């Protein structure tokens, strides 16, 4: 399958993620949108990796494996981030009884 379909899909997912982060106020949804963006990048990385491997399989058996390595990195980091982020959201909820991020500006008071 042509690589451009993967790229279009990734861009679509990424833009949905951005718009979600920008427009929504619910922290959980923002969080999910961030995950969406991360995963769109993951998808792109895997697609490029595969393409790269097909083009260079004759010279190197491991060609394109770096992209997949990156994906694992991102997943690990994302997992760590989720644990921290969810903890923050829990604390936010305890303090404000809401998960609306606009209430976060109360921190400055």
């Amino acid at each position: 399958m042509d690589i451009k379909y993967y790229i279009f899909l990734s861009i679509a997912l990424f833009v949905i993620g951005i718009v979600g982060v920008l427009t929504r106020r619910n922290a959980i949804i923002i969080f999910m949108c961030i995950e969406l963006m991360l995963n769109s990048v993951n998808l792109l990385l895997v697609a490029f990796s595969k393409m790269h491997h097909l083009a260079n399989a004759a010279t190197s058996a491991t060609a394109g494996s770096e992209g997949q390595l990156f994906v694992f990195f991102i997943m690990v980091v994302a997992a760590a981030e989720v644990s921290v982020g969810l903890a923050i959201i829990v604390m936010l909820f305890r303090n404000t009884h809401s998960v609306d991020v606009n209430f976060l500006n109360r921190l400055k008071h």
Partner: protein
Amino acid sequence: MKNLILLIPLLPFLGFLINGLGRKYLSKTLIGIIGSGVILGSFAISVYAFLNLGKFTGEKVISSSARILGNPVLHYYDFIKVGALRIPFAFQIDQLSTLFLLIITGVGFLIHLYSTAYMHEEKQDHFGRYFAYLNLFVFSMLLLVMGANFVIMFIGWEGVGLCSYLLIGYWFKNVDYTKAAKKAFVMNRIGDLGFLLAVFWLIAKLGSVDYSYVLTPGVIDRLSTGDIVGITLLLFLGATGKSAQIPLYTWLPDAMAGPTPVSALIHAATMVTAGIYMIARSNLLFSAAPLTLNVIAIIGVATAFLAATIALRQNDIKKVLAYSTVSQLGYMFLALGTGAYVAAVFHVMTHAFFKALLFLGSGSVIHAVGGQQDIRYMGGLRKKLPVTYTTFLIGCLAIAGIAPFAGFFSKDAILLSAFASNKVLYAVGLLTAAMTAFYMFRLLFITFGGSFRGTEEQAHHIHESPAAMTIPLIILAVLSIVGGFVGIPELFMHGGEKLADYLSPVVASKEIQVEHSTEWILVILTTVIAVVAIIIAWMRYRSYREERKTPLARALENKWYVDEIYDAIIVKPLNKLGAFVNTVIERGTIDALVNGVGKAVNYGGRQMRWLQSGQVGNYVLLMVISMVLLFVLQFFLRK
């Protein structure tokens, strides 16, 4: 002996400490006794040193020159030691310095004694302050003349300037007096800068400031003519400041703001002679620079003449004496400039006697009439102040140069030297001598002759001063009569010129090639002119009449407007420059720059604050916009 000599300056310094620190606790009598006593002690040691001068030989001598060889340099410790430069704290006790020691401590003691009575109405702690300053002044002056190198001299040089400032501004509640003090200080500082530069120059060229090294023919020969002229001119600039010569003389008349004994001590007898001492001390250096000597002679005679003209029409008793002091100092510089160093030192000595006498006499008059200084409101004091009158008359005769009073011999020596070197200098000097006689007797007749012109109350108050004031007057009067005989010329007495013989190891004396007959003519001419001037003054002023206000008289009364001219060409432009620097450079540029940085940061911060709204959405939006911008830059601009 070495330690005893150290006591000469140390005693006044002790007196300064005791009187200065204990001024609130000591009684006035005690302060007076301490203040005068320490000076008397210094005087006693000075006399001892004077009598035992021969015994100093055998002390360590640094110089290899034959001229100074045998003169004692009392080395105490190394004052400054930097690299090859070594400036010792050392005193030089030779003929010249002992002579000055005697003048300073002797006349100084009389003035201290006089002050105990004159200042008696001051409050106790001010009385103590006065004596502390006076003692500090004597200490500085002693350092100045005793130092064995230019740096020690400079310490004293600055010290007397400081004390002069403190004492002129003694009545510091009067704004005019403090202004006069500031003026004296600033004027002195201008001269001091010249002195300091000369010292640096000496160090740069010779690496030493010791008299015993620098002031020897072999060493002076190593300097180029330009160096010698530069150094001597700068030293002379220092002398014009301290000794009140053109162009820096205007501080001295204003210095009359201080108490009268201060004027007698500082501005007549001692401090103002520092310049003459310095030049006489370095006479070898100056003799090697004929150009400088010419400058000195011309400045000296011009100052003598100018000050004498101003003195003709002053109405303040102390101002007349002040200008007369400037004029007499001009004479001394005329003597120095024509190479007659001995005559200059001689005149310093006689002048110290009669000018201190005149100042103290004027103080006695002021004391009698209750603080009045304007001679137009005096008169008729002859009967009421007999001692003051007699001594004042002697002082006037001495300064006018009437034989056989002290001023006659010294002034004659100066005029003779001027005659031998340049007839124009002599003519101006002679004219000045005539004016001197005239204005002094004008002062005498207006003050003591006629009838009293002050208020009834003052007339009732007039009384002769107490003994503590009249005794110094009498002693000084005696000295003014006999003081001239130490320098009596060969003309009158075989084996004369004792002073020149005495000073010959230190001060070169000039051989003046003049026939005895010419000398007689000169002496008679001077005397006749002085007598004629006195007679004119007697005819004009024996009974007081209002003086006419011709334009010339007004110019004289206003001191030729010199102060106004200085004000216009120096003070005002400097003030303008200062104001300009203050507004444009200081506030307009530097302050604006510094404050501008602060303001910019402040303003920037206040604007940036809006970015930190705390709204997470805003942050994210900004982040996204920034990233988009970065992408745009990356793809479309950076090709």
